[in-house]
């Protein structure tokens, strides 16, 4: 490095002064905790006694734990259904709103409202709607003559479907807004050129809209998958992971082990599994973006 002029040195000093608050907070509440979580995952620690070295015990125990395997399965099932449904509905709304239908700005706000709604409050309302005896959904079903009413949140067959329904309701506005931004970035003259070539609505959608929307689609996909792997509040409020772990998910498992069972090692090991999943998905995003995604 060449010696810095006094002006540049002043700028350098100023820069670090501006960075001090963020550096302190970042180090204390993000960087060191990530390292600590990694280290804690190799210990047995109940917070009341000093930690004992466990090496890989927690990880081995996790993957031999039928509940943890069920938790991974549940989380995967949830992600596999919630993400495509939420994206598909968000895309359909965005396509509808992008045509300039009457009242579109009102629609956009309405579809987005659940996104800014507290998930705890939303979960409570939906728990009431899904109440198997007095909930509006089962009352409506019985008015339509359904006799074998699902027990929803207390049924291991239906509880996860209920949670998925709520998360789609809450998340589709988020996809919609991102898709709308993506659609508005597509140049109008491409459609005009296609119209001159005699392309109809469906071909235009298939050969212009969809390929040019692919960067946004890919972005929404990864963001939604990462977000869905972290589902917690809905499970906490609607089912408490029940019945018999039918809706237990990765973050609920971390919470349960850390703060109900005081097994910090197990909870941290599970958190590392979550970290690994999110990290892999983010790296996949960077690698595949160039291959699958069409830019203009």
């Amino acid at each position: 490095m060449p010696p810095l002029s006094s002006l540049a040195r002043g700028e350098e000093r100023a820069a670090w002064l501006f960075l001090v608050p963020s550096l302190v907070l970042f180090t204390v509440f993000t960087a060191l905790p990530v390292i600590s979580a990694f280290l804690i995952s190799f210990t047995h620690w109940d917070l009341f006694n000093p930690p004992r070295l466990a090496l890989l015990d927690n990880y081995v125990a996790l993957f031999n734990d039928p509940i943890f395997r069920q938790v991974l399965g549940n989380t995967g099932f949830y992600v596999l259904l919630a993400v495509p449904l939420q994206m598909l509905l968000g895309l359909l709304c965005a396509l509808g709103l992008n045509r300039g239908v009457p009242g579109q700005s009102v629609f956009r706000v309405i579809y987005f409202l659940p996104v800014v709604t507290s998930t705890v409050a939303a979960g409570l309302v939906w728990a009431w709607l899904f109440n198997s005896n007095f909930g509006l959904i089962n009352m409506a079903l019985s008015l339509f003559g359904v006799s074998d009413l699902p027990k929803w949140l207390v049924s291991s067959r239906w509880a996860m479907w209920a949670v998925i329904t709520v998360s789609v309701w809450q998340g589709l506005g988020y996809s919609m807004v991102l898709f709308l931004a993506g659609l508005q970035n597509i140049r109008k003259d491409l459609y005009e050129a296609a119209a001159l070539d005699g392309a109809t609505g469906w071909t235009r959608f298939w050969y212009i809209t969809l390929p040019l929307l692919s960067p946004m689609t890919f972005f929404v996909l990864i963001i939604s998958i990462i977000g869905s792997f972290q589902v917690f509040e809905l499970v906490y409020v609607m089912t408490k992971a029940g019945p018999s772990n039918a809706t237990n998910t990765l973050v609920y498992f971390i919470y349960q082990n850390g703060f109900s069972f005081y097994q910090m090692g197990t909870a941290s090991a599970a958190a590392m599994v979550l970290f690994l999943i999110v990290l892999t998905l983010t790296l996949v995003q960077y690698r595949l973006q160039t291959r699958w995604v069409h830019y203009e």
Partner: protein
Amino acid sequence: MNSARPAPKPVDWLIFFVLLIGALLMCGPFIWMLSTSLKPSAEVFRFPPTLLSAHPQPANYGRIFSTIPFGQALTNSVIVATSVTLLQLIVCSMAAYAFACLRFRGREVLFLIYLAALMVPSQVTLIPNFILIRNLGWIDTYQGLILPYAFSSFGTFLLRQYMKTIPIELIEAARIDGANHAQIYAGVVLPLALPALGALAIFTFVAQWNNFLWPLITTSKPSMQVTTVALASLQGQFNTDWPLLMTGSVLAIVPMLVVFALGNRSFISGITTGGFGGR
């Protein structure tokens, strides 16, 4: 939006109709929540259900404040969300100013490290942060609820991207006039970055108001609970008193609807330009 749109075609009216049904489905839970919150307790179990009670009970909204310290919970949420928002605006804008407007060794590396933190799910740092707060004796304190959120990589990234678009000539001109870095930051860059600061403010306030897991594990006294935690504990105690639970939900949601109504444009621009979404 351009104003010279072609008149809607029949197919547009069909789409309008479908979107209308969808909008009703989206609003349904809000309407039902409001309806239940105003019903007498026995009426919620009646079949067939009624939308508007013959005997509406606005007094339900008073009941929640006498049953649990819900007023304190709302106050705590305001205190925490406001403090976190103000702190993030200061801390992130200072960092963003250094990254966007100043040259220093290690700038790219440090920025990459901050960005990499976006890949870390918050649940990974949950346990070490809980242990830290507990060891500091900060359980049931405002600083325990606020300080872990005083900085965000997302906010720094959002503001830095925006500050990058400020013409360098404006900064150079101020420098030639003899302004120092603090004066340029406060007098030139911050005023020009107001739209991005607004987006970050609304975004952070809403996220903090709705935050649940961290306040859940770091508070135990009812007087220190925030709204979301108070609501969840209300559910634990009165799990069949639906009118009471629904009044609590309405009171938790309405402030965010107001905030969103005031700033939905900058909120959405925060999502779409921030690029990393609301994580």
